[in-house]
């Protein structure tokens, strides 16, 4: 039963990781911007939801909307005011990365000043676990997490295969030079990539707020999971990022059966490390060139 329980927990965590990683992978794959502040977007989305839902009591739908607006705005504005400016004079990956990292540090500490450094939780009866089989406890939240992930991926799939913008975005990831030739505007498309990618963290942030709680420093962990999952999944592949996110969620939980919980983060990074050494292209990656 222990394994089954861990498997269920792993699925719940994995669904959230898949969503987070998909957002990062989308931004990185399409615009080639190593958006380390993706974790900060997550923190912002979670805390805005907490503020509106638990503190101001605005009701569920408007709180979710507020959270989406905050996340989307942060992503788009960071792109407009920082990344675009940096890329104007030089496109070095590390310059962008360091700036993004700086932004993540600023957000983490501003949130810590506003909300305090402790853990905040959104209380809901949905996160209470019910015993559905002998010794198997599942909360309705687990189901909601999996459904939310499936729904988001269905929408994304539709977006990227059936709309002009989605196709254009994929083209941007494949060959940015050609986008110009076809008369499309890469900067405009980059904005959409940031918007979609940033809003994608909202469900995960809200579900985390309702289950394990939020703290200002959690952006680090989110960022590391998204980077790891994007690389293990293969850069530019949403499907890969989602699978890798799921894999990390499962690995983190199932490893609990064998090692102490302190090691669970290390398990994630051992997987990442092995992938980078033996299969740097990831699950579905294109060949990478140096």
């Amino acid at each position, binding site marked *: 039963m222990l394994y089954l329980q861990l498997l269920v927990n792993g699925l719940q965590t994995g669904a959230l990781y898949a969503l987070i990683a998909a957002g990062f992978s989308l931004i990185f794959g399409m615009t080639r911007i190593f958006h380390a502040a993706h974790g900060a977007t997550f923190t912002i989305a979670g805390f805005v939801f907490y503020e509106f839902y638990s503190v101001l009591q605005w009701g569920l739908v408007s709180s979710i909307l507020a959270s989406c607006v905050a996340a989307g705005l942060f992503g788009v504005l960071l792109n407009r005011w920082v990344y675009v400016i*940096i890329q104007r004079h030089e496109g*070095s990956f590390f310059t962008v990365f360091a*700036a993004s990292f*700086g932004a993540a540090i600023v957000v983490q500490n501003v949130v810590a000043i506003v909300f305090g450094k402790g853990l905040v939780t959104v209380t809901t009866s949905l996160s209470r676990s019910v015993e559905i089989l002998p010794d198997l406890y599942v909360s309705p939240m687990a189901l909601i997490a999996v459904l939310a992930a499936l729904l988001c991926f269905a929408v994304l799939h539709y977006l990227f295969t059936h709309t002009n913008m989605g196709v254009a975005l994929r083209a941007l990831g494949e060959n940015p030079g050609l986008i110009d030739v076809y008369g499309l505007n890469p900067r405009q498309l980059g904005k959409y990539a940031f918007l979609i990618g940033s809003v994608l963290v909202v469900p995960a942030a809200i579900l985390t707020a309702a289950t394990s709680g939020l703290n200002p420093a959690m952006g680090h962990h989110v960022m590391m999971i998204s980077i790891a999952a994007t690389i293990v999944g293969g850069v530019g592949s949403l499907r890969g990022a989602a699978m890798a996110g799921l894999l990390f969620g499962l690995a983190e939980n199932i490893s609990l059966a064998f090692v102490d919980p*302190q090691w669970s983060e*290390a398990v994630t*990074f051992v997987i*990442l490390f092995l992938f980078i050494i033996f299969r740097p292209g990831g699950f579905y990656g294109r060949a990478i060139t140096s």
Partner: protein
Amino acid sequence: MLAYLQNIAVLFAINAILAMALNFIMGYAGIFSLAQAVFFGIGAYTAGYIALNVSDSLLLSMATAMGISAVLSMALALPALRVRGEYFVAASLGLQMIGVTIFSEWKSVTGGLGGLVGVPPPVIFGYTLTSTGEFLALATVILLAILSITALLVRGSFGRSLMALRDSESAAQAYGKNVNTVKTLSVAVSAALASLGGVIYAFYMSFVNVEVFTLEMSILLMAMVIIGGTGTLLGPVVGAAIVMALPAALTYLPFIPPGELGTIQQIIYGSAMVLLMMFRPGGLVGGRSKGKTA
């Protein structure tokens, strides 16, 4: 007051050593490692363990720490040979997280979360170093030694190979540079130099604990190198001075509540990193712009 200043000076020297070691791979070889704090930690734990269990000789500790770090740096060199850019940053991030877990869980050697307590003062040529002033002298000597080693290495053929590698790996290879050897060596040198900082730290604090070897430290070191200027000789030293001066300067500002000091300081680092990258990507010491590194 003198003791306070000396204390700051020793910590500054340690940070400058670490930042210079990081700059060696980051600025010259184009290997952006977020795992520098791991080698700092390896140095500190090695020194602490040897001093507590084997002998309190400073030279023995330094030699062992450098050796162990250089060997373990292969874990960083391996991904560096395979991938570049984003991929390597991710790999080093992974190594950093694994390193912290090992530091806090390998209790028989590292003392777990409690750390190693009561590291005895080091002995060099029969003389025991105890006072802050003596440590300052030691740290300064090592800092200057590393400065000159870096200057020599960078000016020589090894340094030129490194920079060629950084600017274009394929071109360097085409000119007959052995890319793998140069990369592996540079990572090993950087790790060994960083471990020296760890050795001084362990003896100076006479206490080693995982808290200073975390990702935050790696980021801070990266910030020092970036703020000072990557790929410049004195940049990391300047960067270390600025980053270290910040907390001290902030305590004199009356309107900041003491409880928020650390947070405000972090916000300033963060904004400084963003603004520098936007308007002066070469750092304070470096040139205005360097249009390379893929």
